[in-house]
């Protein structure tokens, strides 16, 4: 089998400077840049910063929950803590991190383009994102205590700054729409000659599906927040039954966005896993078309199932049964991906560098998260465990065990390409191990707590739940230690890492065929693509 996917000159980077796109220095060179790689890096720094801030909130919540009773901070402060943990992690980290960060950096590189279709729109999208962050910070004057879901009627009458925070998220959503639109046009119009749809890397397929959701779903939550603001400021009764409104209508609108958006979080991570597994198994990806189309299927089916968040709200029984049945449909394309990844690894020459460790962790934890999602999609079982720690454990297994592990697989995989330096494996492995152990100790216990009936979001709990809460909190410390070691390794790699060759993992996709770091124009000449990027034929020595 041929181990190239392009014809023409090689290497593709030509006479790039050794520092590539990082050559130009200074604040303005970054703030005004139109280079998709620099914008991607700015998104990564911003989102990873909020990952750490959200993580601090999480640690404080866990410390509070070690003991029942009011201590350390008040119950009201606790409400603010879990709201900020949820809102920051979701809107400022987990939604934008992979699409806007790694997607910005690697979509043009992987399809053989010099930039995204609309570079100025891309820069605007970043600064709109920053404007959203600033507005969110203003809301801390009267901090939010509604939980990240803003449910009416409480959100319509609390004295907290719901309007300000939701306007900040409105801006973040606008940034998300602009990025999704940019990526859709880029993938349609800027693919290198010869790169047909079935020769695109699977990361591109997953980003395409993600962008569709961003463009179609995000406007709905934006409008919902506007309606909420109109209710709060002008007294229009959209959601207030006393004025002819319907509080459950808010939840329909909210989840019409917020359920599809969990696939904005997970699909790009799945794309990264589809890139990492063939490289470290030295085998062609198994079931390329099945994985590609399952991304689009997940994006589509994800729009049909929002009602499963509302089974106990007083929604009609008919609707609950329809939504419960439809929920199962999402499991099919997800399982297709998992089986194809396993088949790719079967009899491969697997090596366990850090990107592969994170990719395997993704599969393991995401299967737990996905299958417990089936418990919750089943109407009867959901009524038993709704609003308990079972839900908390389920979505942390999908979002941390899934998306964050996928992001970390991508960061470890592409670190040499982005920075021109290698990451130290000696520190990466213990960091991974601590995170893996810490994560499972923290969140598996919460499955048990949930099944035993401990409700989520309460600051108080009966003493019978304390033992498992202590275990969970200690687990969060192990997890945090792993995260800190990993970040220390990133910093060390940035300054002291060994210079990275253009293609340290001997991968075939176009992003690896240019310099590390890539030159500003990505490729000296746009390559002509002749094959798919997965033609691996055994380990290269």
């Amino acid at each position: 089998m041929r181990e190239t996917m392009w014809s023409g000159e090689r290497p593709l980077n030509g006479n790039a400077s050794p520092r590539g796109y990082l050559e130009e220095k200074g604040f303005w060179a970054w703030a005004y840049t139109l280079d998709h790689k620099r914008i991607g890096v700015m998104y990564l720094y911003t989102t990873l910063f909020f990952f750490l801030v959200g993580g601090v909130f999480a640690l404080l919540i866990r410390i509070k929950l070690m003991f029942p009773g009011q201590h350390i901070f008040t119950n009201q402060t606790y409400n603010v803590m879990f709201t900020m943990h949820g809102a920051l992690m979701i809107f400022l980290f987990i939604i934008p991190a992979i699409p806007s960060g790694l997607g910005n950096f690697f979509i043009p590189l992987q399809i053989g383009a010099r930039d995204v279709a609309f570079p100025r729109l891309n820069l605007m999208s970043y600064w709109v994102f920053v404007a959203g962050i600033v507005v969110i910070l203003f809301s801390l004057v009267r901090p939010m205590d509604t939980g990240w879901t803003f449910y009416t009627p409480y959100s319509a009458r609390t004295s907290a700054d719901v309007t300000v925070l939701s306007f900040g998220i409105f801006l973040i959503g606008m940034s998300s729409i602009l990025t999704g639109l940019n990526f859709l046009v880029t993938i349609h119009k800027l693919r290198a000659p010869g790169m047909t749809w079935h020769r695109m890397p699977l990361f591109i397929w997953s980003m395409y599906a993600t962008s569709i959701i961003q463009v179609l779903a995000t406007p709905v939550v934006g409008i919902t927040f506007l309606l909420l603001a109109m209710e709060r400021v002008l007294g229009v009764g959209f959601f207030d039954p006393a004025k002819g409104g319907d509080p459950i209508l808010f939840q329909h609108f909210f989840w019409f966005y917020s359920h599809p958006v969990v696939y904005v979080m997970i699909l790009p991570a799945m794309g990264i896993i589809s890139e990492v597994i063939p490289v470290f198994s030295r085998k062609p990806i198994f079931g390329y078309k099945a994985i590609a189309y399952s991304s689009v299927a997940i994006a589509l089916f994800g729009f049909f199932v929002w009602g499963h968040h509302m089974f106990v709200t007083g929604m009609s029984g008919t609707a609950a049964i329809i939504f419960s049945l439809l929920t199962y449909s999402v499991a099919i394309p997800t399982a297709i991906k998992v089986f194809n990844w396993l088949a790719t690894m079967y009899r491969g020459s697997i090596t366990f560098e850090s990107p592969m460790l994170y990719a395997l962790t993704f599969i393991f934890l995401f299967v737990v998260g996905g299958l417990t999602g089936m418990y919750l999609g089943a109407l009867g079982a959901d009524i038993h465990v709704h609003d308990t720690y079972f839900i908390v454990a389920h979505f942390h297994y999908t979002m941390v065990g899934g998306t964050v592990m996928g992001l970390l697989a991508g960061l470890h995989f592409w670190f040499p390409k982005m920075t021109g330096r290698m990451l130290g494996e000696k520190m990466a492995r213990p960091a991974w191990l601590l995170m893996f152990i810490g994560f499972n100790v923290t969140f598996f216990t919460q499955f048990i707590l949930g099944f035993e009936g401990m409700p989520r979001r309460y600051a108080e709990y009966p003493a019978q739940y304390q033992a498992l809460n202590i275990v969970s909190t200690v687990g969060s410390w192990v997890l945090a230690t792993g995260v800190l070691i990993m970040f220390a390794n990133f910093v060390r790699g940035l300054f002291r890492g060994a210079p990275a060759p253009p293609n340290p993992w001997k991968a075939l996709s176009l992003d690896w065929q240019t310099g590390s770091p890539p030159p500003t124009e990505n490729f000296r000449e746009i390559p002509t693509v002749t094959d798919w990027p997965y033609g691996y034929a055994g380990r290269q020595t």
Partner: protein
Amino acid sequence: MKEHGPGNVGYIAVWAALVVLTAATVAVSYVHLGMMNIVVALLIASVKASLVALFFMHLRRESRLVWGFALTPVFFLVLIIAGTLSDTLFR
């Protein structure tokens, strides 16, 4: 693109149709039809939006890809209405 357009007369005709339909919306609102009032109003609004998209936004002469991007959101609009009605109609 002017040479392929319906021309000034065509645009004025479309505008006139929009004015007539607006008047129809106002007129129908005075007739008591129960639930059908909303249905009729939405139908007229959909026809008006289609006229604007087809003629003023030139969708009529666009490629199939652009048609795809224009019609996909309509499907999702129908979806959110149908899903919400599956709740409110059967409570």
